[in-house]
């Protein structure tokens, strides 16, 4: 009996001693396996992401309110300081905008008349969902924010997220009550846009810097600093003409765009639900998430996929 116990402990002791190392190697292997799985099977990983996101979002929602309040207080204190100058500036801006309003009304009426004349198909209806930004979890490599609205509010993948100033990004993952917005500065973000008054088509590609670059611009296109960049609507999920930013620099082949969005004061977002009638709706249901994400990003602009581009972050 004691002999048996002795042999058991002879076997068990080294295993016990080695156990931490075995566990370490096992867990590291699992992590590596997950990393590879994340590259091939995005759907499974995405479910896990969405579950974590949904679990954490309510806590973030609670925690973010005091943070926002403090931020607001600081901002309003700063505003108090230069109230007069601001007032002056707004007066002159208001004057200018009144002229523009008149021009817009005139153009709107003209547009309407021309549309009727040419029997143009009506633009799809647009619906907004407003949501609070509750998380900014990206760290050094990912530019994304979490919002406190999800499937329940009718948010789906690929929709555009905007602020009053312009485009913020697109919805990359949707949970029950939360969603992740991939910002247009993220290096996985690709957004079909048009540039300038001549409406050159291009793709706005993020590179994790504050100023994304214009890609796949035609060789004949002439782009100057100050040109406006807006969404082109190619790909079908983004509405046409959402303002994105201004071309900030043109230098040896790279064209940088400064987005209109004020990243520092992004407490609320609007998610645009753009109801394209007919064909794309039914496509939505049959396409997998991955293909849908691609169609919202790049598929329509016939670009060669870059390494890891089709991958969700």
């Amino acid at each position, binding site marked *: 009996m004691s002999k048996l116990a002795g042999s058991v402990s002879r076997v068990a002791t080294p295993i016990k001693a080695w156990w*931490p190392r075995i*566990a*370490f190697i096992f*867990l*590291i292997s*699992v*992590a*590596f*396996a*997950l*990393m590879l*799985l*994340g*590259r091939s099977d995005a759907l499974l*990983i995405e479910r*896990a*992401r969405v579950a*974590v*996101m949904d679990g*954490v979002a309510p*806590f*973030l929602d609670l*925690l*973010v309110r005091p*943070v926002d309040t*403090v*931020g607001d207080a*600081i901002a309003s204190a700063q505003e108090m300081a230069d109230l007069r100058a601001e007032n002056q500036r707004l007066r002159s801006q208001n004057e200018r905008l009144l002229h523009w309003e008149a021009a817009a009304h005139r153009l709107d009426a003209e547009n309407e008349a021309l549309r009727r004349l040419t029997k143009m198909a009506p633009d799809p209806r647009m619906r907004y969902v407003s949501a609070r*930004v*509750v*998380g*900014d*979890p*990206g*760290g*050094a*490599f*990912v*530019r*994304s*924010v*979490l919002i406190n609205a999800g499937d329940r509010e009718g948010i789906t993948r690929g929709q555009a997220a905007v602020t009053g100033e312009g485009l913020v990004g697109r919805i*990359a*993952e949707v949970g029950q009550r939360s969603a*992740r917005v*991939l910002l247009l500065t993220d*290096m996985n973000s690709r957004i079909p846009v048009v540039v300038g008054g001549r409406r050159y088509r291009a793709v706005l590609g993020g590179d*994790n810097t*504050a100023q994304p670059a214009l890609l796949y611009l035609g060789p004949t296109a002439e782009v100057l600093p100050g040109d406006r960049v807006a969404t082109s609507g190619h790909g079908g999920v983004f509405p046409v003409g959402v303002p994105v930013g201004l071309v900030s620099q043109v230098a040896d082949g790279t064209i940088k765009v400064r987005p209109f969005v004020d*990243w*520092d*004061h*992004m407490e609320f977002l609007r998610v645009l639900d753009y109801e394209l009638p007919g064909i794309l709706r039914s496509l939505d249901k049959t396409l997998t998430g991955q293909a849908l994400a691609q169609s919202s990003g790049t598929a329509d602009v016939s670009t060669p996929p870059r*390494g*890891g581009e089709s*991958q969700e*972050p």
Partner: protein
Amino acid sequence: MKLTFWQRLDVVVRALFPCLITLMLVVASALPLPAPSLSHIMPMLPLIAVFYWAVYKPDLFPLWAVFLIGLVQDLLSGGPIGVSAIAFLSLQAAVNAQRRRFVSASFAKIWLLFSIFSAAAFALMWLLISFSMMLFVDPMPLLFQFLLTVAVYPCFAWLMVRGQRAFER
């Protein structure tokens, strides 16, 4: 001796404290800051917690918990999955392997060791991210993140010392 329900709950919560506080730091680092440009170089608070508990309370901070916390961090951040998990596990294993260096070391020495160990962890993360994204990722934000993490270490170590004392009673 039989423990009552509350006593047992008390024991469980005390045993879970290191894991819970680390998880809280993971969630807290997802909070949006008034200046988001800062959030790209925000100190990696969970790394501090992993190091701290690996040094001071390894028995309450098992490998699998470190693994799970790393996984939650990866899932939440939206980055490549497994990167933080591997970095956290490696950090803990390194601390365990070098345990004798930490015995009766002064705070300054532990801080120095943290800066060395976390530098290795950040380098590992950079490699893994570059590998999993199959492209060269700019290491500058990570360098700033590393410097800030080392800079705020004393502050959070102090907080965790207070927490540890309160929960060890």
